[in-house]
């Protein structure tokens, strides 16, 4: 019985927060949940949240795997810029959108492999290893676009950003399909378990016969590919590649989505679905702020306060307190709480 309820219980905090934020949206904008079908395309507040949240959601998929191995990928924003720049460059050179997408994915994949090799083979701390590409990446992207904003009019490429599949905006279809495929693939095979074992103890995983290095490179490769896909979508959406601003601070949103999804930055356990819910929560917060008609100046402050509140609720120390409270009250402990114990001291750093 406990088994069938385990996934739901794991996702419960995220679902509650998402429902609360969506209700907040409804409170400030009564028509929020109305979905209309016009010109072969779905319209509505909720569709908009799904659509605008696509880049963060796609990044969060790769980031979840990376954080599951106790790593972090700071370079995704810069990789987005590189991929967008490559796609735009290929299209403006007269090639088709398929070539452009392949080229962008190739660039993102190379960036991912670079990060992976630094982390797995040279054993550089992930935060430092990916910092290199984060700093240099935007320079490389500007090198590709030669310092200008490359605009393009290729129908196929633009469709990736603003087209529809069966009425659903293409970015939404992409992230839902990708997320479902990854979550399914990782949990239906031993892959998820292997990734988590690296996060818990890389040395032990290696001794247990897991090809930790190869797996680490693959994880960063996936993160790079996800970033490239997000970069192409963002570029296609604005019909141009802006090396300076495309994906700026997206790495932070992606990490935030993963953290709001209840994944520990110390690795060892992860849930892609929870991260996707985290991405949706962030986007719902954004849309609530916009719809409420607050002065846009307050956006960042409100976002920061909300994030802090969510993080404090999820903090291991608070979880520990709740655990102790419940234990003294005789209630069964929540599954999430004991996390505060073992890793607590290291989190303090």
């Amino acid at each position, binding site marked *: 019985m406990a088994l069938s309820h385990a996934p739901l219980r794991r996702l419960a905090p995220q679902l509650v927060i998402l429902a609360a934020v969506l209700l907040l949206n409804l409170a400030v904008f009564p028509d929020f949940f109305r979905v209309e079908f016009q010109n072969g395309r779905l319209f509505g507040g909720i569709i908009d949240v799904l659509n605008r949240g696509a880049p963060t959601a796609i990044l969060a998929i790769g980031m979840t795997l990376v954080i599951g191995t106790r790593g*972090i990928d700071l370079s995704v924003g810069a990789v987005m810029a590189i991929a967008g720049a490559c796609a735009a460059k290929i299209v403006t050179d007269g090639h088709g959108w398929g070539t452009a997408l392949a080229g962008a994915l190739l660039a993102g994949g190379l960036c991912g492999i670079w990060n992976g090799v630094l982390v797995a083979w*040279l*054993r*550089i*701390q992930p*935060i*430092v*290893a990916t*910092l*290199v*590409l*984060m*700093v*240099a*990446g*935007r*320079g*490389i992207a*500007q*090198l590709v676009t030669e*310092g200008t904003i490359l605009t393009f009019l290729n129908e196929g490429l633009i469709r990736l950003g603003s087209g529809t599949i069966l009425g659903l905006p293409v970015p939404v279809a992409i992230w839902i399909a990708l997320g479902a495929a990854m979550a399914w693939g990782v949990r239906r095979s031993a892959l998820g378990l292997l990734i988590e074992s690296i996060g818990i103890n*890389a*040395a032990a995983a290696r001794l247990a016969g897991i090809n930790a290095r190869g797996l680490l490179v693959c994880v960063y490769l996936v993160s790079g590919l996800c970033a490239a896909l997000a970069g192409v979508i963002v570029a296609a959406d604005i019909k141009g590649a802006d*090396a300076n601003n495309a994906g700026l601070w997206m790495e*932070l949103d992606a*990490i*935030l989505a993963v*953290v709001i999804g209840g994944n520990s*930055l110390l690795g060892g356990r992860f849930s892609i679905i929870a991260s996707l819910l985290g991405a949706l929560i962030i986007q719902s917060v954004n849309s609530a702020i916009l719809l409420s008609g607050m002065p*846009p*100046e*307050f*956006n*960042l*402050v*409100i*976002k*920061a*306060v909300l*994030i*802090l509140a969510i*993080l*404090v609720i999820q*903090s*291991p*120390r*608070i979880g520990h307190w709740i655990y102790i409270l419940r234990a003294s009250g005789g209630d069964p402990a929540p599954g999430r709480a004991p996390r*505060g114990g073992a890793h*607590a*001291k*290291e*989190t*303090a*750093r």
Partner: protein
Amino acid sequence: MIRSTSLPLIVTLVTFVIAYALCASAYPAMLSSRVVANLLTDNAFLGIAAVGMTFVILSGGIDLSVGSVIAFTGVFLAVVLRDTSLHPLAAFALVLALTAGFGAAMGAVIHFLEMPAFIVTLAGMFLARGAAYVLSVDSVPITHEFCDWLQDIYWKAPSGGRFRLAGGVMVAVFLGAILVAHRTRFGQNVYAIGGGARTARLMGVPLARTTIGIYAISGGLSGLAGIVFALYTSAGYSLAAVGVELDAIAAVVIGGTLLTGGSGFVAGTFFGILIMGLIQTYIVFDGTLSSWWTKIVIGALLFTFILLQKGLTWATTIRRRPAAGSPTPS
């Protein structure tokens, strides 16, 4: 015999000397005192912020809020000087107290709620940037005779270079920080926490006080950097200083401080700043190179120094534990 811990610092120094020699051989004018003076003035705010970052990184943490705090300080100063009759010195003191308190609050959250510094300072970054937006969306000019007077203070070198106050403040901050890091108990505690929080606690290091102190220093120095930046640009703008935290982190790493914490020198950061400034100056002198080469070269430098540090740590671990296997990545 050179100690392995000071080797990164020596490498940074040698890199700086070689880089400067190369620049000077290409453009002899780069040796002039004007260039040196501008190097100090233009990088003053970054240098001051990097000092705070050095302490944070020495303790094994990270502070992503630096750039936002600089922007907030500028906007706050500009708005206060525009809307009230407060003397600039009082405004400086107020904003320094505010930013140091902000840093201390982040440190307290990191310590007491046991949350990763990365995420807490990320939220702090949003908060400070958002507060700057709330104060003013537009760029607010700073026009006060006292501020103009501060900007006009300089010491003119015989060969024509003007060493301004900002550069002097930066050098003073570096000297003070070197004393604090290497000659006080607080400094030793910072190194101890960076070496291992659990061990430090067993040694009797006051974790709470030190952690809060570290982030208060980082916040306060970001505030000071913000004041210098505001005077340098004569304005407060909420979109200013985006990404300065990355430059600061890069300078700290190029300066030879280990990002895992516990090993490094404040003086190294100074040369890290100078190396980064030198790259920019070279690109300006060259004229044909585009500005994005700065980022690529800094990225490459970062990579080189990380590799170097990695090699050094590897070499020392092998020497100390000849029989043991691979060092566990932390």
